[in-house]
């Protein structure tokens, strides 16, 4: 018997299939039993997403353009950047992609909010204990290297198609950078400054909110920036499970070979990405510049 020397000793097909089947069956039972309960737990998020989308779709277009430019200016204090943002949104509107862009904006916004709400506490926990850090790091590594589509399978099995599974998939994919950079940012805070906070009698919380988080903010913003970028890159894939927005037309364009449609919508995604990127980055740089020469 020298077979195993030449051929890799594989489980025979029947066993392998049985293994797959039993895992699938277990997960299916799980999702049949708990799917509805879990789904209803996400109702508040769905509500938030729908409301926000409704506002973006129903407010007059110029109010939204001005609001976005205003947010952009207050974060970055850069006039040219803010004007650029106005122009980008006007072009998007003229090319007939306003509605899809608003839908995408809504899901990115809500996904980012959730990612921040989950990511910053986890990052803080990681920064406070080395055990937590060594436990989380491999998980985050797997989350970031696992092919995106793999996330979609269990989410879809649990929730079916629609907004919620889309949102969850986007959040899972996009959350690691906030976690990592919150952790990093807090760990990088100058020890002597922390000692000063202790020496003046700041407790754990005052030190966290008064010193550690503010000083980690430039790094946290870099994490938020990456999170938004990753959320945007999920948009097309999320459209495969029924999330409306700029991803849908791109997907249609791929299956039907509509080159121009794909190009325009792709460009709109890029435009959004640039806007988010510049705004969050220059906000981060601005607070950084205030503190260091």
């Amino acid at each position, binding site marked *: 018997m020298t077979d195993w020397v030449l051929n890799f000793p594989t489980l025979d097909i029947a066993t392998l299939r049985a293994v797959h089947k039993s895992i699938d069956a277990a997960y299916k039972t799980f999702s049949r039993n708990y799917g509805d309960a879990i789904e209803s737990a996400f109702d508040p998020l769905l509500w938030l997403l729908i409301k926000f989308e409704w506002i973006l779709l129903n407010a007059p277009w110029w109010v939204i353009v001005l609001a976005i430019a205003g947010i952009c200016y207050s974060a970055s204090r850069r006039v040219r950047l803010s004007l650029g943002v106005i122009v980008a949104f006007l072009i998007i509107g003229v090319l007939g992609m306003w509605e899809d862009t608003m839908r995408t904006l809504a899901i990115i916004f809500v996904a980012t909010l959730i990612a921040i709400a989950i990511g910053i506490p986890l990052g803080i926990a990681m920064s406070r204990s080395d055990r937590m850090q060594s436990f989380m790091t491999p998980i985050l590594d797997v989350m970031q290297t696992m092919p995106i589509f793999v996330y979609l399978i269990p989410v879809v099995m649990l929730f079916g198609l629609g907004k919620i599974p889309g949102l969850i998939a986007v959040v899972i994919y996009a959350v690691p950078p906030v976690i990592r950079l919150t952790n990093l940012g807090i760990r990088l805070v*100058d020890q*002597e*400054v922390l*000692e*000063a*906070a*202790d*020496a*003046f*009698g*700041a*407790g754990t919380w*005052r030190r966290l909110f008064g*010193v550690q988080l*503010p*000083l980690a*903010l430039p790094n946290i913003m870099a994490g938020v920036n990456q999170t938004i970028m990753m959320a945007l890159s999920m948009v097309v894939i999320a459209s495969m499970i029924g999330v409306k927005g700029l991803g849908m037309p791109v997907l249609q364009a791929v299956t039907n070979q509509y080159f121009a449609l794909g190009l325009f919508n792709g460009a709109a995604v890029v435009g959004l990405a640039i806007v988010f990127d510049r705004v969050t980055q220059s906000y981060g740089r601005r*607070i950084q510049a*205030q*503190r*260091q*020469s």
Partner: protein
Amino acid sequence: MTAQTQEGIHVGHLYKVFGADPASVMPLVHEGIGKQELLEDHGHVLGLRDINLDVSPRSIQVVMGLSGSGKSTLVRHINRLIDPTEGEIRVDGEDMLALDAAALKQLRRYKISMVFQRFALFPHRTVMDNIGYGLALQGLAKRDRGERAARWIERVGLQGYENSYPHHLSGGMQQRVGLARALATDADILLMDEAFSALDPLIRSDMRVLLLDLQHELHKTIVFVTHDLEEAIEIGDRIAILRDGEVVQNGDSQDIVLRPAASYIADFTKSINRGRVIRVGSIMEPLRPDLLGPDCPHDISIEEALPIAVASPGGEARVLNGEGEPVGAVSLGTLVRALGNDRERDRAAAGNAGQAAEAG
């Protein structure tokens, strides 16, 4: 000892060992194992060994020593930024080691404040908010905080910089903020860990003047860490010299310069300007009834006494105590001899000290 009711800071038989399991090596430390041996054979760092130090209220105690001698470790025990492995720490009679977290916080907010070597200002707060930090922790309303901070800003000479961020200021100005931040809380005790070491010599001497000025008004109990003997002598009422985590000598500047307890300290004092440091009261000889004048106060330096002695016919002067009574005499010979860097004398002094320590 009467430490329980005593004002000021009392440190008794304090030991600090850094490492994974300090308790396990404490027997060795008590047997007197060397710092090097403890590190190489047992993987623990000896931070402090059997420190006994009493700081009287409203005085400046300097802690001096070379890098790694344990100065920072020692001051950080006083507000318990570091916990001891063994020993006793009392502040105004209160057992610091018995305090729970909440009481410790209160103590740090109201009673002990600290100035740091690299300033340790909060880079995201303005000068005003940095100085008000301790006040915010005390729970003062923003307006009162602002008023008090403004007073301190003025007192340390930083008017006009209220709304600047620390990085806009020079090192000296940053440390003025650090000092004002520490003083603003009205704490009785001020810990200063090499507070002026990072500054240029000129700025440094400005800061010393500022500190002594403030001390003249405020009468804090100050523990001042430095590795600079001149600074120690200028500032300290008493100077404790640390070496490898042990106090080698604790005395006033005259003790340190005239009676160094070890050659290690004599090495420190070699480069000092003795004429300015040594006071005639510390080197005077017994008074002879036939000597009638001229007079000089006991607390002037050799430099100041020399012209007086030179001007007198016999080359001698009487030394008066604080009440103006003559208590001793100095001759030109005494004054000049005290100026010299006499190695033999230093060695003898160190030898005597050693014998005295063994005998006692």
